[in-house]
């Protein structure tokens, strides 16, 4: 392989390693933002997402996603991928896949049966996610053909996870005590320091997530990669500050949990357009995401009364969709503000909604079947005592 080829491969591997580390970030965010009595269960769910994703994507998922296209809808599958020239891509896609499942974990924390979760994690990782991923990233998928832009996966990864999280949170229902007398109660996380370390780790991993999605760094890709790093960072920073200011105004105090969520929202929102927008565009996308995520969390919690302990639906689902749409507005090539008219925006909307429909529909079917068979939810006593005690016979802190 020549030096340029090596550079590209090396970049993908390094970015994959960074994305891998996001699993640790998710684990910390989800445990930190929930109660200590369920921390062990969340650890297990996140580790299993990673393990199932690693094996499932190698065994079958990768070719469902990237195999030769059958009708622009699904890849031709081969089992146990073993192409020695393509291991770096397998790795990079594996760690992406693990992310989608992990998003769900946070939204259903504190009340979901572990065995049920494991099954759902498997389905989303090796069926739901790779099929819609095929539509956008395989090169011959029907959304690619339409011209849909989702560079690193605001929709393909984050919204898919976010919408599955939505379906899960609705079907499973709120935690005991979350809504009483029609009022939403706060159930504060048990360790926000751990949660914020998780956010730092996610932010770190996101550089790999977005800049690695260039899938190359040689030649002209180099400056593109550096540009992606900057847009990614600016959007996150802008969103965090914005979320902080919004809460400062709304509640009189700068709220830490929302600021952290703001940073994540900015990262999710810029993921689709990180290679297509200017730094200024990224900055504005971040601001929009920072505003939207605060109101979205508020709306889902207080109006819709859907219990999402870590805000995954808003952070990944809503801002993921938002960020994808905003590509149609801010793309320097073809965006509404850059004289491209409404065409790209329309295409973005088609992509966002068709993938949302796919994710919601399939998740619903799977979770509904699980609900009617083995059940989604632990018993009242198990929930009150904490999942750690009943699902794992242990406690995290001793």
């Amino acid at each position, binding site marked *: 392989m020549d030096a340029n080829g090596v550079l590209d491969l090396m970049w993908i591997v390094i970015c994959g390693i960074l994305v891998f580390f996001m699993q640790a970030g998710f684990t910390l965010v989800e445990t930190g933002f929930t109660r200590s009595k369920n921390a062990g269960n969340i650890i297990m769910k996140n580790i299993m997402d990673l393990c199932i994703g690693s094996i499932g994507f190698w065994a079958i998922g990768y070719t469902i996603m990237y195999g030769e296209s059958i009708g622009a809808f699904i890849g031709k599958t081969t089992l146990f991928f073993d192409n020695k020239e393509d291991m770096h891509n397998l790795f990079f896609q594996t760690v992406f896949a693990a992310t989608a499942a992990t998003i769900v974990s946070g939204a259903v924390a504190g009340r979901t049966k572990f065995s049920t979760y494991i099954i759902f994690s498997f389905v989303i990782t090796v069926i739901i996610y790779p099929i819609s991923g095929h539509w956008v990233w395989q090169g011959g998928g029907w959304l690619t053909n339409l011209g849909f832009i989702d560079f690193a996966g605001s929709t393909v990864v984050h919204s898919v996870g976010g919408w599955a999280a939505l379906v899960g949170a609705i079907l499973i229902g709120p935690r005991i*005590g979350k809504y009483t007398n029609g009022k939403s109660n706060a159930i504060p996380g048990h360790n926000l320091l751990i949660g914020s370390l998780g956010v730092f780790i996610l932010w770190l991993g996101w550089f790999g997530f977005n800049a690695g999605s260039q899938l190359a760094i040689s030649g002209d890709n180099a400056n593109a990669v550096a540009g992606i790093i900057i847009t990614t960072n600016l959007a996150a920073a802008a969103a965090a500050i914005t979320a902080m200011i919004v809460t400062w105004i709304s509640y009189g105090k700068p709220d830490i949990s929302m600021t952290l969520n703001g940073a994540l929202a900015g990262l999710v929102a810029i993921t689709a357009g990180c290679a297509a927008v200017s730094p200024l565009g990224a900055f504005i996308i971040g601001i929009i995401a920072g505003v939207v995520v605060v109101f979205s969390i508020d709306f889902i919690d207080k109006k819709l009364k859907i219990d999402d302990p870590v805000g995954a639906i808003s952070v990944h689902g809503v801002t993921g969709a938002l960020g994808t749409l905003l590509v149609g507005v801010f793309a320097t090539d073809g965006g509404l503000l850059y004289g491209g008219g409404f065409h790209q925006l329309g295409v973005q909307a088609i992509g966002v909604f068709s993938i949302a429909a796919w994710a919601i529909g399939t998740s619903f079917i799977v979770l509904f079947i699980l609900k009617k068979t083995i059940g989604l939810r632990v018993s009242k006593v198990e929930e*009150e005592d904490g999942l750690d005690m009943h699902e794992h*016979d*242990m*406690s995290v802190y001793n």
Partner: protein
Amino acid sequence: MKKIEAIIRKSKFDEVKEALHQIEVNFFSYWDVTGVGNEKEGHVYRGVSYCTSDIQRRFLSIIVSDPFLDITVDAIIKTAFTGIVGDGIIFVSDVIESYRIRTGEKGSDALK
């Protein structure tokens, strides 16, 4: 004045608290303790599975004036009850004097 000390399941705390508010017992203090009793809990840790009777419980300390004693005890017994081993226990003892620091009130007045 009496001191009521109740050692209950952590998972029953919210209900008990609600019940206390219902009967207008709005002052008390609580903390987490480990209780040793009849109940046993199975655990696994790194290949050693073991049974422990050291179980996390919540300890409530409520000082009430004498007329409140019975309804308070009743309220706790009713809401903390599950019927399964491990429901906990309530102790009552005498308090000689109370002082509310902010107001300097003494005796039963300090409990209102």
